């Protein structure tokens, strides 16, 4: 799975730590999601969608090996 979390975060001009606090996870979790080391749950994806004000499939997309 690919994601555009880093870009969306840059658009909002917020740090990993700020985003983490807004959705109630640790900064390391945001870092792992951005680096594609961790695929978040639907709940977390929807929380991100709420923060970015966009539907989930605009910042998460399936890669070829999915």
């Amino acid at each position, binding site marked *: 799975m690919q994601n555009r979390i880093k870009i969306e975060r840059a658009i909002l001009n917020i740090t990993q730590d700020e985003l983490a606090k807004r959705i*109630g*996870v*640790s900064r*390391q*979790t945001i*870092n*792992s999601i951005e680096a594609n*080391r*961790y695929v*978040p*749950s639907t*709940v*977390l994806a929807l929380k991100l969608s709420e923060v970015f004000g966009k539907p989930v499939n605009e910042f998460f997309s399936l890669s070829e090996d999915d």
Partner: protein
Amino acid sequence: MNKESYMQREQRALQKLINFRLPRTFMTIGLLLAVVAVVFMFFRTTLFGEDSEIIKSSLQKVLLVGMLLMSISRDREEDEMTIQLRMQSYAWAFITGVIYALVMPYVEFGVSSVLNADNETFTNLGDFQVLVFMLLVQLMCYHTLKRYR
């Protein structure tokens, strides 16, 4: 009560049990208990003499309780990723524990028959040895996975 609500209630109770964690302070308490137990194990014969089997087994239990408290205490930052890492570490601990219990008696037998070839008998591992190994693997695995997340 209909079937669905019974199942939902059961599922909720099970989820509550799975998500159960002790408060963060239990990590310190567990660590303290484990350290005290290990220190006393080293100086057991000096402090209590040769005939102290009851103290030995008590210290083993204190060590197990300490490590268990460390294992089930809440993290400073507990989120869905740490929960997943914790589950992975329990899976690894279980798998390596079974392999350890199967393989280690043969390793011990092999090593001791080389060192003491006269009267070596095959013995199985004790529960303490296996449980300590599993808890050790779980704690190490969890904290390593957390560090590299």
